[in-house]
């Protein structure tokens, strides 16, 4: 059994995942200050509960704490601010028809991809971030989000479907 609050172990096993923690929080909360607060808070919690960490992947364990702290934060913050109006350039493909492939290739549409991910509900957004940016397995995602494998799969499916539509619409110049 690990000694409670063993700082050296904590530094080795948990602190290296600071970027992963911040990235998830930043995407879930959409604001830098909020993300920093929540990550800071999460690390203190992680340190406090470090004795309950049973080894294995420190990143998934930490992300579970970050994720729950984010969701609590979002629930408390009922006065949910509306999304900022999308101001990214809307590229039309040369022939004017929707062409998501070409659209994605265009640098200008980086703005729309970012916007489209931000526009997803948090439950969809987090699975995309964990899968595509952190490259977590479905099993790890399930343990972080506290849902079954099948739920991870169906949320990812729906998230990807929405993203495809959103990016295609942005490239057509249609406001969401």
């Amino acid at each position, binding site marked *: 059994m690990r000694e409670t609050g063993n700082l050296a172990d904590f530094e080795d096993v948990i602190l290296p995942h600071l970027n992963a923690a911040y990235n998830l929080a930043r995407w879930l909360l959409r604001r830098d200050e909020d993300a920093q607060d929540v990550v800071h808070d999460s690390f203190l919690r992680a340190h406090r509960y470090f004795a309950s960490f049973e080894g294995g992947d420190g990143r998934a364990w930490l992300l579970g704490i970050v994720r729950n702290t984010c969701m609590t934060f979002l629930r408390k913050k009922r006065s949910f601010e509306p999304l900022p109006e999308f101001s990214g350039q809307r590229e039309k493909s040369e022939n004017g028809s929707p062409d998501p492939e070409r659209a994605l290739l265009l640098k200008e549409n980086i703005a729309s991809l970012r916007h489209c991910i931000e526009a997803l509900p948090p439950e969809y957004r987090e699975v995309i971030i964990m899968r595509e940016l952190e490259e977590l397995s479905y099993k790890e995602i399930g343990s972080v989000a506290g849902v079954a494998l099948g739920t991870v799969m*169906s949320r990812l499916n729906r998230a*990807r479907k929405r993203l495809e539509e959103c990016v295609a619409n942005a490239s057509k110049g249609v406001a969401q």
Partner: protein
Amino acid sequence: MTCDSVRDMLGAYMDGELDANAEFQLRTHLAECPDCPEAYRRLRFLKDGIRETNLYYAAPKELEASIRTSLGTAKKNEHAAGIGFRQWMAIAASVLVALSIGMGLYVFRRGTTSELVAQQVVSSHVRAMIGTHLIDVPSSDQHTVKPWFNGKLDYSPPVRDLKNEGFALVGGRVDYLNDRRVAALVYERRKHVINVFVWPTTRKAQATKLETLNGYNVVRWADAGMAFWVTSDLNAKELQQFAALLRR
């Protein structure tokens, strides 16, 4: 498999999250269905777009500093002693090492397309061997096998029988790997099955390379805009001889 059920599984297929049996069924469907490969291509494109766009938010420097300060305080409160300079240096070093290992892995995972293809080539070979889907067009006649691919692929793979050289053509099938539909030609040498995968490439020509993966030999090269990946449990020497004959 119906297209609807395939569509539900395409994402998991792309993420390598299906079990071997489901993956095999899905690949078989992708090799035959006129519509699903396009849906898969779109999914793949979205995934690559997300990964290639710089969407990652790295933690600001001041956040790390503030967490370290808080943790240092926590430690002080517990043990009534601060962390010495040497310990800080050790911590900083271990974080640096962890970060650089992390980055190294990241580069590694991204950088080895040919390894991924080799892996797919071998698993496709293995699946074809243990499954029932080794050959769609059983024929030792190259003039039967080559036209069979018409309308099933958007290119025409070169097909040659090498029976007189000791490598008998036994047939062909359409397979799905490297995110596309490909021609698979099947040869036999003393009961050893050889799978030859052929698809168009932007490379004009590439020298023959040999590698071994999970006990299978893999030989690859490119000629006249076609990539060739050959795999078998046949010994390396004879497989290279076979490759040389095909390249002739």
